[in-house]
């Protein structure tokens, strides 16, 4: 007998994968058709095969690797800096209202400022060197990160911390042995999400003020109306993001096997 459809029903992993793959395939097909039969001017929409050819070209002449290397370096440094500063500050904010009073309103305020607006300012302050690009990634992620880490900490139940205290833990031990292990899985999910945003800010920085990197390669392609090269840049960034996400998702499952709700979303 047919059962009723309800939300949040489970789905077989294989079926799930199949639907996902088919979606990508349909998208690719529509793109191929549209470009092959020139429903759209080829200048605006290159054929997928041409994008692949272009990608192969950049692989062979090595320009893809240099651009990727530079971009990955910038995003890593910016993101690392945001994490190294943001995580402890977020944890301290959730522990002590006095620290929160300093940082929370500040972060709430700055996170509404558009990051691209900082680019000209940073160029004036620090030129167009590597550091200004790293700073853009930092500014884009840091303030959000602090707020989200506070949230991650706050979602640890009071009773869990009280359990630590009543077992004789002092403030330090409660933070390091109870609070941090308890929030670590959701913190990793937060970082996983933030790294996606970091890519956006990196490309913003490279579009405006750079002469290397994936973002710059897109800008350069636009100047010569090489849409295929623009597509290469976008697709490569998308793939890098996807790979990072999958790797992090896998690591999170491996590191925190005790988590009750590690989702596959």
């Amino acid at each position: 007998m047919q059962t009723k459809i309800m939300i949040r029903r489970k789905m077989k992993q294989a079926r799930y994968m199949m639907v996902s793959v088919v979606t990508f395939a349909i998208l690719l097909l529509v793109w191929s058709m549209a470009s092959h039969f020139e429903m759209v001017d080829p200048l605006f929409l290159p054929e997928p095969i041409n994008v692949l050819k272009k990608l192969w070209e950049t692989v062979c002449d090595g320009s893809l690797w240099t651009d990727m290397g530079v971009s990955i370096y910038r995003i890593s440094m910016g993101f690392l800096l945001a994490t190294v500063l943001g995580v402890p500050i977020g944890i301290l904010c959730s522990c002590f209202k006095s620290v929160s009073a300093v940082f929370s309103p500040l972060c709430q305020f700055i996170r509404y400022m558009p990051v691209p607006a900082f680019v000209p300012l940073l160029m004036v302050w620090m030129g167009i060197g590597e550091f200004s690009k790293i700073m853009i990634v930092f500014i884009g992620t840091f303030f959000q990160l602090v707020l989200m880490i506070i949230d991650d900490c706050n979602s640890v139940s009071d009773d869990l911390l009280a359990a630590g205290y009543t077992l004789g833990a002092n403030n330090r031990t409660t933070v390091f042995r109870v609070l941090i292990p308890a929030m670590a899985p959701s913190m990793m999910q937060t970082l996983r999400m933030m790294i996606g945003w970091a890519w956006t800010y990196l490309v913003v920085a490279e579009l405006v003020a750079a002469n290397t990197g994936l973002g710059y390669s897109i800008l350069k392609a636009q100047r010569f109306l090489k849409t295929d090269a623009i597509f290469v840049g976008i697709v490569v960034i998308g793939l890098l993001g996807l790979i990072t996400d999958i790797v992090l998702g896998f690591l999170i499952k491996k590191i925190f096997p005790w988590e009750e709700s590690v989702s596959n979303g």
Partner: protein
Amino acid sequence: MADAKLVASNVCKIYNAGKKNAFKAIDNVNVEVCENEFVCMVGPSGCGKSTLLRMFAGLDFPTSGEITIDGEKIIGPGANRGMVFQTYTLFPWMTVEDNIKFGPKLKKMTKQEQQEITDKYLTAIGLEKFRNSRPKELSGGMKQRVAIARALANNPEVLLMDEPFGALDLFTKSQMQLMMRELWQRERTTIVFITHDIEEAVFLGTKVYVMSASPGQIREVIDIDLPYSRDLDLKDTPEFIKIRRHIHSLLH
């Protein structure tokens, strides 16, 4: 009383004091818990019994009045007052064994002492087989047993229990009550046990504080004069039913 261990004298707790929505949760409550006693506090929800227990733990503080242990004012949580919560509070990243070891480890006991204590309480709660399991693999009743073992392994002077069996099904609950009573008879740890289940309070306690709500006050203190060794059949005896009915009439 000279030998009172844990004392609450004239304790009041007012939330939002001085504001329009001020709310008196506890009004002039006096409690005396002597060494080796199993004190149960029973009352309807909202009678402030959990608040009172949290104040014993040092997780909350009275608006006026004083709470002392061995004559010393309680100014915060400490290892001498262990606590078992109604919610599941096992550390999910640790195995059952490591959860129980948490307290002894903090006390910097030797590895061997830690192991001996852990083994002792794993046996006491009958979960030796699950020593390497994670909390998420355990049922609700098993989780609470580990939580009790974890608190006892720390050898507290007073064990505070906040409706620890409140979320369990009836069958598991009576099994837990039996185990708890046996554990107490063996260890004679001083216990303060909060519940809204009259039967549970009478079955477990040596003394029952009956509380009424809004504001939370002590209605009566009853010494439970029932056999020392107890099994679940006790709940059907006339003596038991008489006390249960008496408390029931106090609360309704």
